């Protein structure tokens, strides 16, 4: 089978699943420093699907594309450790404030600078849970999309057959390439880091990260061009500045409220026969239970 060019869209997100007691500041704002920045979970499922295609079609290239601040290069390194071939970081202060429409515009511009047969993204990111960027990118690239994928059952250089996980069942669809797919969390988890790849890529850096590096380090970097993580700015992707960042975002945040729950006067019961029997009697008497 002919090698394929695969682009994986990934995002670095705060780990909102493990929100501890210090996650909210006293003033009710989110304490981002208390939340670990992680590889968005379903994007890891997406990376696994890409690596499986590479396992099948030898010579396929898996390129990781992410948009975010400089430190998002961390997830590109993570992807390289697990089997991706290359990474791009789309980073520019002008992207700040982008909503899903502006983000999808920027990502579509960046993707267009590359050749691709298949684009694979996680279904949604846990910081926003919107699931919008994937389909919005597909629309901008004018290619079909297959969302909620849990397995790619067959892939050739011309088409894929994918199984979709729906609320109450599954659907199998066949799409020609190029296609954008979004991968559901029920898909197989991503393979772990490979020790030999960690050794190879642990010094992979963006040029910005290299600014503070020693000369020895820079020499090492020059000898090993594969260590370079490409950084792209708005100019590099030839984007229209009005279509990205705040000005390209039709949605505006009007208000943010901290979620406050009113504490109730609770009655504390012991796990004893007496307490539980009296509770049951009370619930029967007030018709809560029949």
């Amino acid at each position, binding site marked *: 089978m002919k090698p394929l060019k695969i682009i994986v869209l990934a995002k670095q997100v*705060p780990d*909102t699943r493990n*929100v501890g007691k210090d996650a*909210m500041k006293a003033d009710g704002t*989110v304490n981002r420093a208390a939340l670990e920045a992680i590889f968005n979970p379903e994007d890891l499922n997406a990376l696994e699907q890409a690596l499986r295609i590479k396992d099948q079609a030898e010579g396929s290239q898996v390129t990781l594309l992410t948009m975010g601040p400089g430190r998002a290069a961390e997830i590109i390194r993570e992807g390289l450790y697990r089997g991706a071939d290359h990474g791009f970081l789309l980073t520019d202060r002008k992207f700040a404030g982008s909503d*899903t*429409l502006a983000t*999808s515009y920027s990502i579509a511009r960046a993707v267009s600078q590359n050749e691709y047969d298949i684009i694979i993204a996680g279904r949604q990111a*846990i*910081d*926003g*849970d*919107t*699931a*919008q960027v994937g*389909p*919005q990118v597909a*629309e*901008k690239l004018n290619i*079909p*999309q*297959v*969302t909620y994928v849990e397995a790619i059952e067959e892939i050739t250089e011309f088409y894929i057959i994918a199984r*979709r996980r*729906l*609320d*109450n069942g599954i*659907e*199998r*669809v*066949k799409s020609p390439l190029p*296609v954008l797919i979004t991968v559901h*969390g029920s898909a197989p988890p991503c393979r772990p880091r490979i020790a030999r790849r960690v050794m190879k890529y642990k010094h992979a850096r963006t040029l910005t990260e290299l600014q503070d590096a020693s000369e020895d380090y820079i020499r090492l970097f020059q000898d090993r061009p594969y260590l370079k993580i490409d950084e792209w700015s708005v100019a590099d992707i030839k984007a229209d500045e009005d279509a990205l960042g705040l*000005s390209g975002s*039709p*949605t*505006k*945040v*009007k*208000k*943010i*409220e901290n*979620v406050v*729950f009113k*504490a*109730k006067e*609770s*009655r*504390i*019961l*012991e*796990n004893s026969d007496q*307490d*539980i*029997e009296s*509770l049951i*009697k009370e*619930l029967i008497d007030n018709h*809560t*239970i029949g």
Partner: protein
Amino acid sequence: MITIRLVDSKLHKIFIAVNNVFVYCEVQNNRLADVSLELLTKGRKLAGELHVGLEAILIGKGVSDMAKELFDYGVRTLHLVEDERLAFYRTLPYARLVKHLFEREKPQIGLFGATPVGRDLAPRIASSLKCGLTADCTGLEIGDHHDKKSDTTYTNLLYQIRPAFGGNIIATIINPDTRPQLATVREGVMKKEPLMESMAGEIKTLDVNGILQKEDFVVEIIDRHVEEKRINIKNAPIIVAGGYGVGSKENFKLLFELADVLGGEVGGTRAAVDAGYIEHDRQIGQTGVTVRPRLYIACGISGQIQHRAGMMESSMIIAINTDRNAPINSIADYVITGDFAEVVPRLIKYYRKNSK
């Protein structure tokens, strides 16, 4: 039809005519999806406040007999699209049709269910029309907005209210400058109420010829196995719910036994669903369904904010937890400190003993 001038918008420096509220109606297992009926109920209220009409889009094969039910929910105009090839949802032709109708009818608001269909379709439309879309709203209201920077006041905007950041904050999102204002809404968070007296509406049939193109059908459905929703925890009067603390699928059997005895249903937290203890249909919370039962028994649930948001309106809450300081306890009417595996059998025993 009202025409508003959009000023100072880099997105659309044009006159945009805005009018009705549109709901995309989804068909599941040959009937209208609950979420669509919930959206029609909300859409009708929003349209009333805006003094405009409620319109619906229904696409499928052999779906015209659902028109009556839509009119019962206050739909004035139904845009009906029927074709052999549209029997099941497919992204490209459906997106082309909805986009065509939105461009022609210029709604001010477009609502979709936050289902796999709505979440596949709506972003495609928003991306194409370059308009704002808010996912998974839990509230929709009409309100005004003053933009300080441009000193512009916008009236009658759609407030799209949704949890964000893993449910720790509630954000109100607006789309001041673009139309339609698009939102997806989760099933079960809004009420479903037909009109007291049904009204007659108009059906406008859209001819797909000349709109749909051959390339819209490049993605083929090979097969699909979709089951009728068996579980309906949304309407259950009594819910016995378990969290990660229940520990295993096996241990959940005890919860099923209690639910069975009390005539209720079993629900679970996202953590319990993710761990595979219980099926996704039973997930309660911001990323599952919202429930308001008469009695909610929380077993081994610590009460993350995302979960509490989906059950806090229950009339009575009993929390069973080994942790005296579990967050769930703060909203519970009764707190039983102990292992659910000991407490639940006692509840079953004394219910059997005392029930008439």
